[in-house]
């Protein structure tokens, strides 16, 4: 044809702006700027080292769990059991005899194994048994919560101080929570360049086309759940490292937060569109909103109410913005 096309432009490193517009991340970043501004206004030492690392330590679990939800949503499914799963993992960790299972490393290894097991159950029910994920994971969430209550009817138990110290410390001069987030996002960046990651996107975008093209649907969806639940395990370990005890209701609020963060991050609930970076942005927005509520001195009894209002407003903003662009 014409010479206008030429050889394909190599790479798209310079195409940040179109990539940003396509990603749907614009409104999320705008919201992030607004809440960051509010944080700075309410908390003048926002950028001090102590404040920043404290914030990152607090946000890390939310970020990890939101990114986990993003991976599942990209495959055109949903997981409403993430929060209860966090609680269950936390209770298992707190009820283990810390010294007899190989110390902190052993406890964390068991936490990851439990998470993989929970992810496998959800993945098998959704991908192989063909249950609708909305209902199936809502139900397994109730099961995880029930199990957590059985293991630990009241908040209690002990998690080794070693885990807490490690989490609060630094490695090679970098705060450990930041490192965990970096590892998780790098993990996704690697997966996104791998055949398996591309297939998760393809299945989410059009399952029928993916199937027609010979992509194994069920295996790909199961993979999405397993990857997500490894991230959930990291999130559960991070939050346990801060509480140092078990609580069967610890993770409850993360389920709603993760879905909200996914939407704020411009990831389509219809699957296939967006990136987990969006969930990272969404999680930061939600975390900073919580900060604002706290520093604005709103009574704790009103915090959930205000948080819900903010999420509804954020979603409304997203929808309006989406319509304007269309």
């Amino acid at each position: 044809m014409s010479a206008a096309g030429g050889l394909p432009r190599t790479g798209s490193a310079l195409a940040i702006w179109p990539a940003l517009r396509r990603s749907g991340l614009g409104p999320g970043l705008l919201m992030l700027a607004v809440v960051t501004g509010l944080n700075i206004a309410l908390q003048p030492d926002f950028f001090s080292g102590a404040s920043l690392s404290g914030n990152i330590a607090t946000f890390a679990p939310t970020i990890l769990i939101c990114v986990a939800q993003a991976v599942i949503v990209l495959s055109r499914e949903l997981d409403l059991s993430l929060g209860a799963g966090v609680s269950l993992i936390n209770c298992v960790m707190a009820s283990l005899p810390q010294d007899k299972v190989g110390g902190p490393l052993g406890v964390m290894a068991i936490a990851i194994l439990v998470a993989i097991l929970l992810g496998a159950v959800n993945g098998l029910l959704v991908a192989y048994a063909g249950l609708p994920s909305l209902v199936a994971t809502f139900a397994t969430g109730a099961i995880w919560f029930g199990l957590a209550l059985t293991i630990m009817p009241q908040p209690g138990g002990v998690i080794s101080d070693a885990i807490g110290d490690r989490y609060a410390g630094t490695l090679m001069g970098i705060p450990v929570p930041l490192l965990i987030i970096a590892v998780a996002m790098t993990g996704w960046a690697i997966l996104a360049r791998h055949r398996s990651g591309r297939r998760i996107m393809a299945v989410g975008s059009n399952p029928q086309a993916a199937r027609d093209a010979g992509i194994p649907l069920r295996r790909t969806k199961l993979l999405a759940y397993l990857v997500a639940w490894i991230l959930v395990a990291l999130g559960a370990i991070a939050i346990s490292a801060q509480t140092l005890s078990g609580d069967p209701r610890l993770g409850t609020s993360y389920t709603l937060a993760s879905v909200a963060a996914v939407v704020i991050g411009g990831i389509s609930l219809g699957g296939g569109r967006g990136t987990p970076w969006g969930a990272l942005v969404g999680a930061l927005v939600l975390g900073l909103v919580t900060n604002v509520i706290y520093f604005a001195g709103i009574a704790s009894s009103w915090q959930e109410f205000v948080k819900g209002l903010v999420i509804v407003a954020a979603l409304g903003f997203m929808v309006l913005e989406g319509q304007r662009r269309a």
Partner: protein
Amino acid sequence: MTDHLPLPPGRVTARRISKSFGGVPALAGVDLEPRPGRVLGLLGANGSGKSTLCRIIAGEMAPDGGELLLDGEAVRFATPKDGVRHGIVIAHQHPSLAPDLPVWENLFLGMERCGLGGFVSRAGSRRAAWHMLQAVGLDIDIDQPVERLSAAEQQLVEIARALSREPRLLILDEPTAALSAALVERLFAHVRALAASGTAIIFISHRLQEVEALCDDLVVLRNGHRVGSWELDGSLDEARVLDLLTGDSDVASRARDRKPQAAREVVLTLEGLAAGTALRGVDLDLHSGEILGLAGLQGQGQEQLLDAVAGFRRKDSGRIVHRGRALSPRRPRDMIRRGICLVPNDRHRQGLFMNETVGENLAAVSVAMQPQPWRLRRRALRDFVQRAIPRLLIKTRGPAQPVATLSGGNQQKVVIGKWLDGSVDVLLLSDPTKGVDLRARREIYDTIADLVAGGSAALVYASDIHELLHHCDRILVMFEGRIVEALSGSAMTEQRVIAASFGRVA
């Protein structure tokens, strides 16, 4: 047929394939022997089982009975992947692409070009993708998501993907429906080259001249049976094909009996109607009892004109006058109230509730528009549906059949049928026979003719000139958002329409 000769290598054969959907047989023991190095034309009306047969051969669907032979050995395909592995590749009529993924990724969907450890080799894939698209004559940004492409471009991506997989059997399911003549020619050159290298090809099309130009063998299906097959030697016996397709050789020859438009009442007047960049000022008069055709190349504003009149989009300027009253529709409901109804272009997305039944679809408009929203007129609706099915000759088991299981032509009849309960005064139709076979096409126009005989009027856009010449009283040709020619009587010729389509007015 019990004595099978040993087959030469690389040969895929379908034997006595049968399949039914919800008790309705779609295929009743069909044989198909595409031969290496030859193009097999598969002809049949909509609903004759062509697509079903091809999906079964490609492993996308399991047959109820019969078998697939690969070099004489029976094989079972559990998933489409098995078909691909054996070199059987299909380019679907409706492109099977992931809309959010970039063009280049779609070309390698399921067969990613990977380097070490399964990592997608991006640079290599993009370069190969560019060459694959150049080969079919598509010069586009390969990084944009597929959903941004036009229907024709998506079709070419689907075809380019199939061609690149070096198939031993390539199935092209209506590949040309969305393509311009130049692109069709280019595609045919490719297909011939592929056949010359020993690939077997199955080619499905409703355009007989394409089959004549491309195919070496011909198989005709009707109602899931194979009713004829022979070798073509350069020319197609059109009368015989039409006879086999429909069981009715009279099908193509019944032109509309045109009445003089002398003193007919004007139903709808447009004055300088403009909307967006595509519609730049249209004037027309639509008369009672008239079928008025909109012709022209694709994308000259015909669809925007229909959308603006139907209230699907707001007009920027100009007047829409219906029976003496100027209207400014804000939403389709405003116009439906006045009996101005649109049969949209995309029946799957805009025309039907795909998850519901024939009866529910037919009654949808009546339910939405009924004057007493709190009282569902069940009996009246049921009677309407019972009358509409035979009136439109919809081939269905009954009102309870899911509309998704009907063939394309019958689905289109349902889209039209849903307007027949109310008092339709102006029926707007956007390419109503796209992907519809000859018989259903005639039946659809018969219905329209019936409707306008009662005093209403129809405004039809169709991409096929012959269809308009055949069925319309007058033809308006659009070019770049305006009407450049109005033809009636003996001036309605293919030459005049084509000339005006390119902006050349006599």
